[in-house]
């Protein structure tokens, strides 16, 4: 007897899925590219078959990585008022909060505006690079387990709305100068959404090396298992 949990036994039918929102057991149909399958009970989208998923996600992720570096190295917003000028980068916002004694909020902004997006792009880059190998190596599975978390906490699009509001507020007192990073970040918002829309995790999971490697034969050469 082990103290650690043991591996579950897989079913013979890999098309069998349970809806993550209502647990309804069902069989995923074969889908044409671009088609999607929804849960008949709660209408959750279960799978969307995306064309050329890994290559497209790879191209978009490389572009996002480049834009991310630019966006965080040049000023985002500037202002002039009666002959005085000031500007800030994304990180400058974090620094001001920290200096004003709001360390926890500074950490939250650092995480949601800088660290989580970096992880989101970095992990995705590693995932799509690893996914081009056959079989897809184990570490890709580890990264894919953690990727959804970075997506939840990466809030560049929310930050951009916040920046827009700040810009309008400040425009009452001073002349606002939009920085290069502002435009780059807007493009980045769309790129991050496009990565999400083009990447099909199911395609990668189907080709991945299993955690329980020894007991698991290659896909297509499966042991049939009783489902009683």
């Amino acid at each position: 007897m082990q103290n650690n949990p043991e591996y579950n036994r897989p079913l013979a039918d890999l098309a069998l899925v349970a809806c993550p929102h209502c647990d309804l057991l069902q069989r995923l149909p074969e889908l044409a590219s671009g088609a999607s399958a929804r849960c008949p009970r709660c209408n959750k989208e279960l799978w969307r078959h995306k064309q050329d998923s890994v290559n497209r996600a790879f191209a978009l992720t490389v572009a996002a990585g480049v834009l991310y570096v630019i966006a965080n190295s040049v000023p985002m917003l500037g202002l002039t008022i009666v002959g005085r000028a000031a500007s800030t980068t994304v990180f400058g916002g974090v620094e001001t909060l920290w200096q004003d004694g709001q360390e926890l909020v500074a950490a939250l902004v650092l995480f949601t505006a800088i660290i989580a997006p970096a992880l989101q792009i970095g992990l995705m880059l590693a995932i799509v690079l690893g996914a081009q190998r056959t079989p897809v190596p184990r570490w890709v599975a580890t990264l894919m387990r953690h990727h959804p978390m970075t997506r939840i906490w990466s809030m560049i699009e929310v930050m951009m709305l916040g920046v827009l509001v700040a810009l309008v507020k400040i425009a009452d007192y001073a002349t606002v100068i939009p920085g290069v990073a502002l435009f780059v970040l807007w493009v980045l918002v769309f790129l991050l959404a496009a990565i999400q829309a083009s990447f099909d995790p199911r395609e990668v999971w189907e080709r991945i090396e299993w955690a329980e490697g020894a007991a698991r034969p290659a896909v297509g050469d499966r042991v049939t298992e009783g489902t009683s």
Partner: protein
Amino acid sequence: MSPSAAITAREQGLQSCEVCTLVSRPMPGEEAGLCPRCGEELVFRKEASFQRTWAFLIAAAVCYIPANVLPVLTTTTATGSDSDTILQGVVLLWSPTGWPLSLIVLFASIMIPSAKILALAYLLITAQRGSAKNNEQRMRMYRMVDFVGRWSMVDVFVDTFTAALIQLQPLMSVAPAPGLLFFAAVVVLTMLAVESFDPRLIWDAASPKEVQHA
């Protein structure tokens, strides 16, 4: 589809992986196991989902009060200093050109957090009482809460960048005020509450009771 015709993975003694979607069967007598494909720890339902969600939700509700009563920004000018709460920030933003953004902030900072707390409390109470009614509507509510939650962070970013830019001492400077921490806490705690809630609990009332511990 009638509830009795629906068969869930748990009724079949199967666990589905949240990460890679593989459905697998735990070893006999086990309540938990590891996903044979991705290695994720599997359970039938998220662990202590009701307790955790309630805990985050109550903490969020407690922080909600100082978040709205305490000022989030302090503006210092040559003539003195002035502190604004979130609602005062919304009012200040109201102008012939700025009113759409004022509405967005009102919505994101005040309506979404309170609606989120109420909606999650409703979902928790109905699921704990074993309600099998209005499942589709409750599901839509859950997805809405999940989708809009992050947008409440808008005000944190507004205040961050306003304070970062307006550092023109002694003419005018803006600094964050204590309410901001509570406001950020509300956003984070409600997001954690949504994360801990298992939407499958909404549907479990439709399943026969005897299979709860298969």
